[in-house]
């Protein structure tokens, strides 16, 4: 013990304690699950992040006559919707989303393996870590959140050469590109990506964020839209689907 003592409430406030929601995460989730008795266990298993339970519940639904591809939207995405809603409301935290996304991806793979046709993508997004930068935990979070929101992610990994980004965008025709970087020394690769995309006539929104990246820097190149939080990535993709152009995206996400 320190020799001095004080009442901490006079000098600090734990606002997270003060603001915590009364409802427990499990109670909040229970209110959001679908009622269908074949679908609900799938959604529950996504919320719990239990891959084996997800596949088992999907199998039961398919055996009962449900279409495997329809189950992606009608069950897996519904379960993931519960997770992302609770995350957005601050009721659950990122690790829950990551574990749910793992379960959802396993579920999607299982559904694909049980079907003849391929599911329709909501929108494709190319994600990468800047050339010269090997710090990829931020990108891992971004890709998980995008997948959790039903976007099709092309994950190029870390330390990705500018050429590879451009070639992938030409081939995949994404609705958005994301770039993350930890270091100020590597984030300059984003400018090169921007310039090469423009040269190729590819005017795709380029969301940039991570450690040392800031809005001032991202604002210096035309396609750049600053993402302060990883959770901004799916919001930006949704805004693009809703018709937002670069100007509107910058207006919405450039908050400083």
């Amino acid at each position: 013990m320190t020799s001095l003592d004080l009442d901490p409430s006079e000098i600090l406030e734990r606002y997270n304690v003060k603001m915590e929601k009364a409802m427990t995460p499990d109670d909040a989730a229970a209110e959001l699950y679908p009622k269908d008795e074949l679908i609900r266990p799938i959604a529950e298993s996504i919320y719990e992040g239990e891959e084996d339970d997800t596949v088992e519940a999907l199998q039961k639904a398919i055996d009962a006559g449900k279409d495997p591809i329809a189950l992606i939207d009608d069950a897996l995405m519904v379960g993931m919707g519960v997770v992302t809603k609770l995350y957005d409301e601050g009721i659950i935290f990122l690790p829950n989303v990551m574990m749910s996304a793992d379960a959802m991806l396993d579920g999607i793979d299982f559904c694909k393996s049980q079907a003849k046709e391929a599911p329709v993508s909501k929108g494709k997004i190319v994600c990468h870590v800047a050339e010269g930068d090997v710090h990829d935990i931020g990108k891992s979070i971004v890709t998980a959140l995008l997948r959790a929101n039903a976007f099709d992610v092309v994950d190029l990994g870390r330390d990705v050469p500018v050429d590879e980004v451009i070639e992938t965008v030409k081939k995949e025709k994404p609705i958005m590109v994301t770039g993350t970087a930890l270091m100020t020394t590597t984030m300059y690769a984003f400018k090169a990506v921007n310039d090469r995309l423009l040269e190729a006539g590819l005017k795709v929104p380029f969301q940039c964020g991570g450690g040392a990246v800031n809005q001032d820097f991202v604002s210096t190149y035309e396609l750049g839209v600053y993402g302060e939080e990883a959770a901004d990535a799916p919001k930006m993709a949704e805004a693009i689907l809703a018709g937002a152009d670069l100007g509107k995206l910058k207006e919405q996400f450039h908050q400083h």
Partner: protein
Amino acid sequence: MTVNRYTKMAYASADDMIFGNSPNPVKAGLDLEIGGGYTTPEINYAPRPEAGETKEKLIKEYERITRDSMERMVQVGFPSVVLETEHVQQMTNNPTWGGEVANAQKAIMEDYHDEYGIKCALRHTPGDIREDRDYLQLRGEKYNTLMESFEEVASNGADLLSIETMGGKEVFDRAILRNDVPGMLFAIGCLGTMDMEYIWQDITKIAKKNNVVSAGDTDCAQANTAMFIAGGLLDKNLAHTLAIIARAISAPRTLAAYEAGAVGPGKDCAYENTIVKSIAGVPIAQEGKTSTCAHSDVMGNLVMQCCDLWSNESIEYHGEFGGTTVQCWGESLAYDCALMNSALQTGQSKNLRDMMVLSDKYRDPQGYILAYDNAYKIGEAIVKDSDDIYLRAKNAAVECVNLLENADPKLQMTRFEKNALADASEALAGLTDDSDKFMSDSLEQYKEEVKVFRPENYGL
């Protein structure tokens, strides 16, 4: 070179721990003694990105940084300073670049020392370049380049050798995003420690050969990743109770540098350093309220409690209203040190220490555990099983959980933080005490779950 485990605490009681003093002070550079009765600012900086285009531009940039820093210290009358150069990648990948930068910096520092008598030392921290696009490559060709870099800086003017190693990070990155406490134990406590033992024996050899100081490491790559993901009070990415468990586990990992021959001062961003100091008695650098230029934390005053060097973490070199960034932030650091040194001189040091602790101890579970009294208890849990890298890491985690579960009610935690703590407690209770079993089970599990995990990086 052998690894010598710490089997007892460096202090008879936690209350003996104080800033500016360590049981094993270190003499370095130009008349500087670290942990020998006074604190010293440690200025950290990064060159502007465009300065990295050529070696010549880079050297010029570091010359400006060094001259500016030394000039401000002299202008305001501060008696001592450490400069830390954390390498940009090209300086480590081209070892002679780092050597030439060290040489240029040291020449300027010697001029100031000769003219004004200011006590000073230069720390160089090569980047951990041991990875490629797909995998960590901890041993092999990149390791050799890294050792060449240490040799170049040590033989060209660097007084203190440090690095921020990344062993275990590939497993940790997956574990921390999935609340996987056993994975954190395996990544930091086992893999991280094994890599530390390997690399720090070689760094110490280079330091001894060049008559410079084998200083220390930090678990920046893992425990700081956890702290940054946890973020502020309203962030919802990671429970702060889990972030501090990762931190507790990082202490025996960072301790391994000293068991392999390092003598301190430990690296600034190792928030685990108070625990390490309680065991090894080495001087430590810390950062907090004066490193907000680089990142936020929730214990900015508290972490000054036992520091010997006081750092600003890093700031890009450029102009501000009050001078260049190294001058502005260096001056702030030095005034903090002047206050601490005044407290030491007037017999008020424990009061100042305790005020700094109390201002943050109940702000967050992280500060609560790192407060020197609790940090000391974590240290005791570590030395209890000092010869077993798994058990001592597990002990640190268990003690951290115990301290939080029985915390002073003044520390308020959210239900979410308490639930995460309860889950961690349950996971720890379910773990074996058999190290061999834990290692073999974990190897099998993470080879399966983490595609980029290569056991050969750790000699496994």
